[in-house]
């Protein structure tokens, strides 16, 4: 009996040392792994705008985005007009600010129609991965525009409300991969005053926007809106923009071609006079410069 014990002891010792040796190869496995966490998806677009439309991307809290939107003249002006670069140019200066992760507000002033516009953009659902995740982001935007143009007929009774239009927009978007993001953009635009009685006060539109990333800092982008109840007799068309996003540190340059001269929602939905098919296209750029106004503590 006494002889049997040492082998048993030996066997047990060998087993313990073996488990010990296995343990030491991956120490991290000793610590209980964290449960999979819900992770939000960021960076569907380089900028909170695709080109003319809002994108599914929000400004982060405390960030101010100074936007210079510039459209040259028509490209089909030919060499005499230096392909539109001689002008006349159209500009919108804008300031957007991120209040929280899900709330952004902004204002802008456009040359086109001497318009001031403002909006509130709220993210209802953010695309995420992990438990209880959502495959898409859902964003709602409400905004208003105000034209400062002189009354075309000052002799008649003119109302302040006639200068104002409102819009509501939803964005349903998904970042499909590191490179590809797509979004669906239904909009409704209400104009208090319309040019002719054939023009509906409420204009409905559906739009799409997307991007394909070419490298870390360069992406191809497009956005398009189809106006559902456009007045057939009006000389207005559906806006389409094609562009390239170039990011350089704190700036995003959005170089693009578009048939929309206006750069707020009322202008591109209701007042796109030009047509791609006729070559009536503008070259333009958006410059977005982000400043961190409020710094994170800690």
């Amino acid at each position, binding site marked *: 009996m006494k002889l049997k014990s040492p082998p048993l002891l030996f066997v047990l010792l060998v087993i313990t040392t073996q488990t010990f040796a296995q343990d030491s190869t991956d*120490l991290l496995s000793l610590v209980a792994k964290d449960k999979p966490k819900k992770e939000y998806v960021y960076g569907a677009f380089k900028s909170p705008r695709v080109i003319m439309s809002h994108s599914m991307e929000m400004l982060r809290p405390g960030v101010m985005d100074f936007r210079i939107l510039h459209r040259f003249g028509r490209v089909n002006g030919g060499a005499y007009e230096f392909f539109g670069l001689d002008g006349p140019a159209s500009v919108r200066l804008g300031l957007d600010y991120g209040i929280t992760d899900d709330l952004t507000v902004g204002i802008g002033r456009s040359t086109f129609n001497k318009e001031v516009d403002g909006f509130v953009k709220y993210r209802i659902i953010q695309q995420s991965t992990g438990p209880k995740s959502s495959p898409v982001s859902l964003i709602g935007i409400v905004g208003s525009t105000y034209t400062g143009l002189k009354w075309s007929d000052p002799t008649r009774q003119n109302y302040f409300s006639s200068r104002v239009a409102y819009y509501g927009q939803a964005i349903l978007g998904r970042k499909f991969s590191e490179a590809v993001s797509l979004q669906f953009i239904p909009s409704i635009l209400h104009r208090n005053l319309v040019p002719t009685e054939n023009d509906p006060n409420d204009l409905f539109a559906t739009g799409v926007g997307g991007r394909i990333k070419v490298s870390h800092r360069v992406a191809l982008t497009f956005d398009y809106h189809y106006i559902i109840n456009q007045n057939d007799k009006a000389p207005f068309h559906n806006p389409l923009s094609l562009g390239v996003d170039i990011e350089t540190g704190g700036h995003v340059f959005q170089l693009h071609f578009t048939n929309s001269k206006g750069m707020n929602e009322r202008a591109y939905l209701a007042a796109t006079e030009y047509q791609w098919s006729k070559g009536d296209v503008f070259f333009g750029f958006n410059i977005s410069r982000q400043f961190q106004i409020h710094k994170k503590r800690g």
Partner: protein
Amino acid sequence: MLKRNLIVILALLLTSVSFAQGKYYTKTGKISFYSKAPLEEIEGKNKTVTAVLDSKSGAMQFAVEMKGFEFQKQLMQQHFNENYVESDKYPKGEFKGAIVNNSEINYSKDGTYTAKVKGKLTIHGVTKDVESTGTLKINGGKIDAASTFNVLMSDYNIKIPAIVKDKVSNNIKITVDCDLEPLKG
């Protein structure tokens, strides 16, 4: 006889318990990095580092979620994740190594010891040998492990475009600060 075997088994169980006690860990360790370039200083902080140290062998391991780094400016965080470390593709940074002079450290005695650490650091999918000197402060069964070392971004295949050369340094200072507690089990 049965009793004797039982004693042996108990003794062995005790050994394995004390063996587990020889290990220290944390899940809230801190790692920060610092880039100093002529036009901009960038600092990223991560407070959810997992680290385990085996006092018997001196082996140590760190793991850090790249997305957990926080910056003063949101845009820096976005660029860090998207353009530099590509944290969707390479979510984790890891260090696996050992204290070379482990025999000089008396884990049962309070005090501050200098530890020479050697091992492999994996960032952005690239693994490189690194060496550093740090301190182990042993106080009442807990260990405060700290170290500072430099890495080159280019070693880890992270490219800095010429346009931001004055804002992002290739030479990154990494500071590790972990309060390790005994691992039970």
